[in-house]
């Protein structure tokens, strides 16, 4: 790894960054986020930045990474003066950026392509390294983050921790001398946090300058210096003070049992962890609810009576998955009880919350919530359930859509059929409970992240649920916002609301819950630590549409000849073959097309089972269309009559012909997609379209847009589903109600989806900047495309096929007609 961190050759550069009297304002000087910041960062130093939400840490990180410029002051990065009294110096910024890596909170937004190796190569390609250099850099960088084995996998479907390691590799492959990280572990579970920190420790030992924004005490451990940003100014703080600052009783993620000795906890009795979701089928769920009857530290409401939530041997599996996300889970919760649900990422906690809220149906088992059997809900029962169960999903702020906070909070009550004034009253109450009354008339999109979270939670509370489910409600929030949420939960508990809360923090669980249900069982744990990489907030496998799975191939079968063809040649040949299918309309031609297609399939190295699985959905569709066709075409002799409908020979022949034709064309498409990565396809498109550059078309950029779109397609599809579910939980479902109400529900879904798209695009554009992408730069390619002998053979074969088909068509070889 020595090559990556070669020391600077000039002696002026003892500093990686120097900021003098830097000022930064987002509102043209009305208020200053940074107000006279002086900061010297030495080469090889590891610096941690702390501060409350909204204190300007990210702004400062952006300045240090050279992605934005201040309003005033002087900035020197890696020995280059990039900003002074004369403003920003673009060329200097460009130079400095090449040596600076920037990483942000959400790793998924910084991943550019659908293959780990290609993603890591993106930066070096932009810096125009030659192919051998890129190769070396990609392999050593992946080795450094211990992701070399995954080089051919698709990062979209990896866990957050793995994704963040891929983005780090993408940065160090550019020979970065300084890395600026903005809360790189905010979205990760404990194991993934440890992995990422280990990588940073390694880089530190290699002499890389590290600037890290963090909320977590344990990340300060190896820092050379800790700085706190407060009222636009930097203060130096020592480790003990910083740890004290960051820790609070409602700390979100670091309050593990081991750490809790440091944190003042007031007389909380130890809770028994209740491993409910076990495989033991003999044990009845009723036997296990005993801890609920034990007295609480502060008994505000005595839980009693019949269970309000009851799950019996519930399993859930996404349609396209081959394992249960939740397996044989049994539990019951009494009215007024508070239960914490814990477990590692990927153990099905979020799925469990959606099952209880009736948003997804169990694959197996029985669920009863508030007296309703969730396996078979009538439309009326569904509406009833929505009024009784409130669900605060992960990052609920992503479902905000109205013009003002008040309108957004009233959305649920209005959907429940309350009058405008009653809905407004409920909204006001909910906002009061969360302490956000003063935000009522502001646009939810103008609020800080923490305020948005509170507004979104108010939108659920306004529905007056008897059961409130919260999925990691405090993740990513600072201590103040956490306190608001805890106050809310306490007052709801006092009103006898049943609380189910998913959390990673044992400390929180102790504070809130009567008992803890742990989903960590042997069965789920094994799926968690291996190659099975499940996204933190659900399962990418469940994209809803069975067409999307075709893009999921990350590891291509290396055996078939098809994978080794030049993608440009392959693209042209396949398009031509598919188009020629439309010429086929005689049995002999169909036979020829079938033989040709099956030969291609045989050479693709793909398994027949796999192909059939991809084709199955289409075959059903073709069958339906075929039947329809059969009855529609009434010429020719009648073969039989069914329920008064004639089936003629022509109709049958046409149905058979068109069904076969479609199947063959789709089969070709599947072979192409299964043997070519989306990146290769878009590169091929770009290369083929490159002559159009002369007419002013941005072909390279269009290709990048296309490949980024494909990269973000599954992410957005997933988020769209979450938003749809969240709005449905507030009573705004596209599936029910009058046409106008459905259209409104569609709008209430689309606005947050666009907000998500814009959020991703803001992060993505920063990531593109950080990886030194610019339009029109000279880029090199890690794997250049070459036309080889194989490609020529492929062209020759398809030409032969075309000739044969045309010969048949012209009728040179006489054939009996249909």
């Amino acid at each position: 790894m020595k090559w990556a961190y070669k020391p600077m050759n000039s002696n002026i550069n003892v500093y990686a960054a120097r900021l003098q009297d830097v000022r930064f304002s987002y509102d043209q000087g009305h208020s200053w986020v940074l107000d006279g910041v002086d900061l010297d960062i030495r080469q090889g130093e590891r610096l941690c930045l702390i501060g409350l939400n909204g204190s300007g840490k990210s702004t400062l990180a952006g300045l240090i990474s050279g992605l934005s410029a201040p309003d005033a002051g002087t900035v020197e990065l890696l020995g280059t003066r990039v900003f002074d009294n004369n403003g920003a110096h673009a060329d200097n910024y460009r130079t400095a950026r090449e040596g600076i890596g920037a990483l942000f909170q959400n790793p998924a937004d910084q991943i550019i392509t659908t293959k780990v190796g290609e993603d890591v190569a993106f930066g070096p390609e932009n810096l125009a390294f030659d192919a051998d250099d890129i190769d070396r850099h990609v392999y050593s960088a992946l080795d450094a983050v211990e992701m070399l084995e995954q080089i051919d996998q698709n990062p979209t479907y990896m866990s957050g921790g793995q994704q963040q390691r891929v983005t780090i590799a993408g940065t160090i492959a550019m020979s970065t001398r300084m890395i600026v990280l903005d809360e790189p572990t905010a979205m990760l579970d404990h194991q993934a946090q440890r992995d990422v920190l280990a990588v940073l420790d390694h880089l530190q030992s290699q002499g890389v300058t590290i600037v890290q924004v963090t909320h977590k005490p344990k990340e300060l451990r190896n820092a050379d210096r800790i700085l706190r940003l407060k009222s636009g100014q930097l203060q130096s703080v020592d480790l003990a003070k910083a740890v004290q600052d960051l820790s609070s009783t409602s700390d979100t993620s670091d309050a593990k049992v081991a750490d809790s000795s440091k944190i003042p906890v007031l007389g909380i009795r130890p809770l028994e962890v209740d491993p409910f979701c076990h495989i033991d089928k003999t044990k009845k769920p009723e036997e296990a609810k005993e801890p609920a009857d034990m007295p609480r530290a502060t008994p505000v409401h005595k839980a009693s009576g019949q269970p309000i939530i009851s799950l019996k041997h519930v399993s859930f599996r996404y349609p396209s998955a081959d394992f249960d996300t939740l397996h044989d889970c049994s539990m019951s919760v009494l009215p007024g009880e508070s239960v914490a649900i814990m477990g590692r990422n990927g153990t099905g906690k979020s799925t469990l919350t959606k099952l209880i809220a009736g948003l997804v149906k169990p694959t197996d088992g029985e669920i009863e919530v508030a007296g309703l059997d969730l396996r078979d809900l009538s439309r009326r029962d569904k509406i009833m359930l929505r009024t009784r169960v409130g669900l605060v999903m992960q990052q609920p702020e992503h479902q905000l859509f109205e013009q003002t906070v008040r309108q957004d909070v009233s959305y649920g009550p209005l959907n429940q059929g309350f009058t405008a004034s009653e809905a407004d009253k409920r909204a006001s109450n909910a906002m009061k409970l969360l302490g956000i009354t003063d935000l009522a008339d502001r646009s939810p999109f103008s609020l800080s992240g923490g305020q948005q979270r509170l507004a979104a939670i108010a939108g659920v509370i306004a529905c007056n649920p008897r059961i409130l489910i919260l999925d990691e409600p405090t993740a990513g929030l600072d201590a103040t916002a956490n306190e608001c949420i805890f106050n809310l939960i306490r007052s709801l508990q006092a009103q006898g609301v049943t609380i189910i809360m998913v959390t990673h923090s044992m400390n929180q669980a102790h504070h809130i819950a009567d008992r803890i249900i742990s989903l960590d069982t042997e069965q789920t744990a094994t799926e968690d630590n291996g190659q099975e990489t499940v996204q933190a907030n659900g399962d990418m496998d469940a994209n809803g549409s069975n067409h999307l799975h075709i893009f999921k191939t990350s590891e291509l079968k290396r055996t078939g000849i098809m994978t080794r063809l030049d993608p440009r040649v392959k693209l042209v040949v396949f398009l031509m073959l598919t188009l020629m299918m439309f010429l086929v309309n005689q049995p002999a031609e169909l036979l020829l097309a079938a033989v040709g297609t099956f030969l291609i399939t045989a050479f693709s190295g793909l398994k027949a089972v796999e192909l059939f699985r991809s084709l199955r959905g289409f075959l059903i569709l073709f069958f339906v269309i075929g039947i329809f066709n059969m009855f529609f075409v009434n010429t020719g002799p009648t073969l039989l009559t069914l329920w008064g409908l004639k089936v003629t020979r022509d109709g049958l022949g046409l149905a058979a012909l068109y069904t076969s034709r479609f199947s063959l064309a789709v089969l070709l498409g599947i072979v192409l997609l299964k043997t070519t990565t989306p990146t290769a396809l878009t590169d091929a498109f770009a290369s083929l379209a490159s002559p159009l550059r002369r007419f002013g078309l941005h072909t390279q950029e269009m290709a990048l847009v296309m490949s980024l779109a494909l990269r973000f397609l599954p992410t957005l599809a997933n988020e769209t589903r979450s938003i749809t579910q969240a709005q449905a939980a507030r009573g705004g479902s596209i599936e029910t109600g009058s046409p106008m109400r459905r259209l409104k529900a569609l709008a209430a879904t689309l606005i947050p989806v666009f907000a998500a798209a814009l959020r991703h695009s803001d992060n993505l554009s920063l990531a593109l900047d950080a990886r030194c992408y610019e339009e029109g730069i000279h880029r090199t390619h890690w794997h250049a495309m070459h036309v080889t002998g194989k490609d020529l053979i492929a062209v020759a074969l398809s030409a032969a096929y075309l000739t044969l088909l045309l010969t048949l068509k012209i009728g040179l070889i006489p054939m009996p007609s249909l």
Partner: protein
Amino acid sequence: MSDIFGTQKSDGDIPTNNLDDDTAAKTSDSSRSTSNQMMKTTTRTVRDKTQSAHSTGVGDHGRWSTQRIAVYALFSAVAMAASYISISLIPGYTWLTYDPSGIICMIAGFAFGPSAAVIVSVLCWVPHIFTDMSGILGALVAVVVSLAMSVPSAYIYSRDRTRHGALIGIVVSSIIMLAAAIGCNLLITPVYTGWSEAQVLAIIVPALLPFNIVKLIINGVVTFLVYKPISNLLNR
């Protein structure tokens, strides 16, 4: 930050939230036309931070900024995701399926101008070439229909950024889309089904017309409901 149309901060006379400014519509004709002219010249720069106060100057004017690339990519991804939703509206006619991607193309056009509508409409259907049974021809028809809906509305709206302009744009493009959709269906249906011309003409009234009218009503109403809130998001 500058607004999506890249209006520089120095253009203080233009309200930041210039998308659909009803008050502007009520002012005198002369001031409106100058305002529109300025809109026209600035429509090209998308959400361009390169012109804001905190620009590093690296992505200079006139080229595609990373912001533009990213926002086009994400809009295309939303459109793609939407295009894979398929709801059959007319019983029996399984290939006449509704998907909300048209709404996204129209929003892209409203927000970033006709060229964005073209890019999102085209890119959104490219994957369908290989994943759909209708293949390249089907994708081509979808692109034409999508362009017919999004480009005229984007153009009209770029000339008259008011609620009135949005409405006119939606209505005009709906008519163009209806004609384009029926035309394309007449051309393409025989290729897929082998029906005679008369058979295809026979399904216009029972299937093609109602399907496309329902489609344009959904697209038009929803676009009208959401374009303003989304433009506010962009202008933040």
